[in-house]
């Protein structure tokens, strides 16, 4: 018997999503495929043998041996600055996965879907948006995406393009674009009431972001009458790396 193996992953492509977040497209020989919402562990090993690992959500649905991650550079982090600024095309890291079987969306799901993202919490939710599109699913999706300001968004171009059945609403907490009617501020009940689904539609909700954001968004959904059994949450740590 073999435990979940570490596999060699080679950087095939990369692109910047904003000035601190970089998407890495990794080629991973033997990759078994994955579900939207799953994550991987990434391990770096120094020449002296010291190694350290972090968990990252996968940003795109399964595509052969390609695995796409978006990594936010955490200042003073041990792993993310390397992945964001140092790793070059052709360089290798080790990855293990996919892991996680609860915070996932499958295209055969019939219930409408609400995605609530705080900051880099958009990553696994974007895998769901892309999975839906790739599968030609007609499941209606609504995405509520909270960031500090418009410049902090990931995937802005792609989310601007029409994607029938997907509605995207932005919430800005610090600064808003010119002419934006909602003042900057954290996620409120009205945001979820207007940008989400009524509880009686029995949507499946996926909430991902920093711990405080997730707690707040989940509490607001429950106060709007959503079934706790249909609200799935994933929290990012206060420190990452």
């Amino acid at each position, binding site marked *: 018997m073999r435990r979940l193996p570490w596999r060699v992953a080679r950087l095939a492509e990369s692109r910047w999503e904003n000035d601190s977040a970089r998407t890495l497209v990794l080629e991973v020989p033997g990759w078994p495929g994955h579900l939207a919402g799953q994550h991987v562990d990434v391990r770096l090993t120094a020449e002296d043998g010291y190694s350290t690992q972090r968990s990252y959500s996968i940003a795109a649905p399964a595509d052969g041996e390609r695995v796409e991650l978006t990594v936010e550079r955490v200042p003073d982090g041990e792993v993310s600055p390397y992945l964001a600024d140092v790793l070059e095309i052709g360089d290798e890291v080790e990855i293990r996965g996919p*892991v*996680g079987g609860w915070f996932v969306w499958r295209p055969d799901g019939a219930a409408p879907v609400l995605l609530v993202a705080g900051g880099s919490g958009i990553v696994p939710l974007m895998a769901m948006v892309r999975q839906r599109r790739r599968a030609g699913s007609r499941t209606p999706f609504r995405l509520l995406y909270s960031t500090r300001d418009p410049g902090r968004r990931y995937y802005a171009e792609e989310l601007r393009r029409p994607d029938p059945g997907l509605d995207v609403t932005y919430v800005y907490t610090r600064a808003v674009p010119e002419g934006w009617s909602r003042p900057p501020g954290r996620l409120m009940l009205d945001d979820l009431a207007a940008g989400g689904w009524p509880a009686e539609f029995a949507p499946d909700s996926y909430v991902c972001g920093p*711990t405080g954001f997730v707690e707040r968004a989940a509490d607001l959904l429950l106060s709007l009458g959503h079934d706790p059994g249909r609200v799935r949450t994933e929290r990012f740590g206060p420190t990452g790396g």
Partner: protein
Amino acid sequence: MTDDHLDGNALAGPLREIFAVDMTAAVGRCAGCGLTGPLATLHVYGPGPGFTARCPGCEEVVLRVVRGPDAAWLDLRGAVSLRIPLTDAEPS
């Protein structure tokens, strides 16, 4: 407890190293208060020196997992039972 916890999704990798299937979707019952729910919903503190997972209802320790160089310690003190889905043939 403070707000600085992760959740049971963070246990997916460490537990998948031990178990043959995904454990974050496994439904456990808390020995402290009887609350049931997927391991993904536990409040998790870590990763160093290991992960401690507490019940979101009563904050009692449900499980702990510590990885050493050549062994893992799994402490299930607060889990009365675990119902582990085995129907899923998909990657996990």
